[in-house]
């Protein structure tokens, strides 16, 4: 395993880098720039950085206006306030007119930790995914985040980027790795069952697959960094070739990755899909690792769910 870095830190670095190359990029934050790490851009390009104060709705609207004038704005705040508080603004002022605004929600999921349920957004992917034309990306680690930032700068259209607070181990620094929006990455080959994971759950899925191998189970691991557009082809192939799927996300099992995968499976090739994620519940305060344990977001839960999925498989 390589370096350990929070995706938001890798994001801050990457943003400051792309800012040097692309002068249309402007960055807005709502008084949390030292947490979202958009401050790294702000330090380098103060003329293209706007702290709007604690006013998320206004931030989204200003970004829309800037985008109509040819800028490529990045708006930043915690996932909770980004996707939650400004859903209407994102839908009506950005997505409906099809404006090129990058919406970055950091501190997503349980691993916010001690700040507790009000700050642990477990619904953002479901919300953002339901908006027509929105691209939704949730990188697995720092390396993938850097690639994702470059990719979304090239992509013209509304995009939601989901990032985490906690330092995460690097799993994508592998030979032949390539980031393409909407295209999943096969992290491990396998023929008995497929684990489809996103964000920090990719590392856990790999650990689960290594455990399962000891029991003679060959689990494929797919990294779905893009939740929308979902990589339908990879889902169908997994269903066809392995006959059972497990999804793993740091998000409510309703409406996120598990939901997206299930939609494809039920439409195209029904096979069992067992979902790992929070089970329609709010989070709570606590140490991030403890919370992952309490809510069952662990390699062990993924392994158990994988065994269950295989049992449910039609023979």
């Amino acid at each position, binding site marked *: 395993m390589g370096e350990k870095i929070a995706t938001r830190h890798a994001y801050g670095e990457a943003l400051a880098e792309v800012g040097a190359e692309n002068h249309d990029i*402007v960055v807005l934050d709502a008084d949390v720039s030292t947490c979202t790490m958009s401050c790294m851009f702000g330090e380098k390009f103060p*003329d*293209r950085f*706007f702290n*709007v*104060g604690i*006013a998320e*709705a*206004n*931030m*989204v*609207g*200003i*970004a*829309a*206006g*800037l*985008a*109509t*004038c*040819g*800028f490529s*704005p990045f708006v930043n705040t915690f996932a909770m306030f980004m996707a939650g508080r400004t859903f*209407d*603004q994102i839908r*009506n*002022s950005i997505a*409906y*007119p*099809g404006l090129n605004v990058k919406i970055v929600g950091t501190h997503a999921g349980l691993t916010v930790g001690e700040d507790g349920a009000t700050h642990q957004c477990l619904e953002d992917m479901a919300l953002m995914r339901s908006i027509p034309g929105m691209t939704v990306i949730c990188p697995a680690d720092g390396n993938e985040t850097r690639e994702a930032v470059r990719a979304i700068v090239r992509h013209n259209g509304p995009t939601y980027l989901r990032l985490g607070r906690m330092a995460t181990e690097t799993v994508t620094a592998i030979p032949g790795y390539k980031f393409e929006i909407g295209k999943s990455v096969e992290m491990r080959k396998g023929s008995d069952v497929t684990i489809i994971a996103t964000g920090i759950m990719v590392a856990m899925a790999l650990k689960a697959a290594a455990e399962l191998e000891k029991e003679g189970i060959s689990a494929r691991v797919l990294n779905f960094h893009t939740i929308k557009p979902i990589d339908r082809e990879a889902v169908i192939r997994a269903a066809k070739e392995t006959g059972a799927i497990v999804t793993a996300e740091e998000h409510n099992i309703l409406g996120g990755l598990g939901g997206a995968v299930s939609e494809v499976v039920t439409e195209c090739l029904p096979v069992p899909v067992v979902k790992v994620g929070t089970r329609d519940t709010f989070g709570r305060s606590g140490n991030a690792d403890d919370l992952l344990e309490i809510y069952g977001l662990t390699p062990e839960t993924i392994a158990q769910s994988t065994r269950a999925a295989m049992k449910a498989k039609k023979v």
Partner: protein
Amino acid sequence: MDSKKAAELRKRAWEIRYTGLKMVKNARSGHIGGAFSLSEIMSVLYFDKMNVRTDDPQWEDRDRLVLSKGHATVALYPTLALRGFFPLEWLDTFRKADGQLSGHAEMRHVPGVDMSTGSLGQGLSAAVGMALAGKCRDKDHFTYAIVGDGEIQEGQIWEALMFAAARRLDNLIVILDNNKVQLDGTVREVLDTGDLKAKFQAFGFHTLEIDGHSVEEIAAAIDEARAYKGKPHAIIANTIKGKGVSFMEGRCQWHGKTPNDEQFALAFKELEEKCEV
């Protein structure tokens, strides 16, 4: 402004109302009240003050207008059509599934519309973004935002005002359509917004108050705003909701209701008389 120009702008305003009413009649739906309060403002903006090109609606140096009270398409679309952004016949497709003129202001399919709006409280922020873009790029275009006096009950409006003042966006001109009526009743009944002039001033705006049906006063206020540097501008335009049709004036019942045939006939008659003068 010379009296000939003033007469022409006044005539345009009545033409905008008349054309708007035809649109509503044809669609059998649409918001008349808050459109009719805006007609003189629209007339002065698009037929005198705004620097736009009908043959190049996306021209980057143009002045921009965000109709933050996006339901007032019954004022905006006729104005744009009469100004020449698109054929008048398009107005017949207003609010119809096979047309491209949606019920609320929409920028993707309607030439001349600078921002899609409809969810109240959001448009002003987009206008602030446009003004900010102008400053970033050293452009001298102006951005106008029309907000409703009910709409300003939305908190986002005040977020936007605060930001515009802090950034000294003197290329932003906010026009408040102060028609005193919202959807459920008068503003005073629903949620009294108090002393608006004092509020805008306290938020750091260069603030003017005018008769929003006087084309001379509208034009003079815009000139004054454009000449004043260092602060964003608020023009409180005192207007009458439903202006021009006696039985609609000042009544929230005519916010979004469609008249029946008899009422349409009466309304057209009143407007025709005014178009003449």
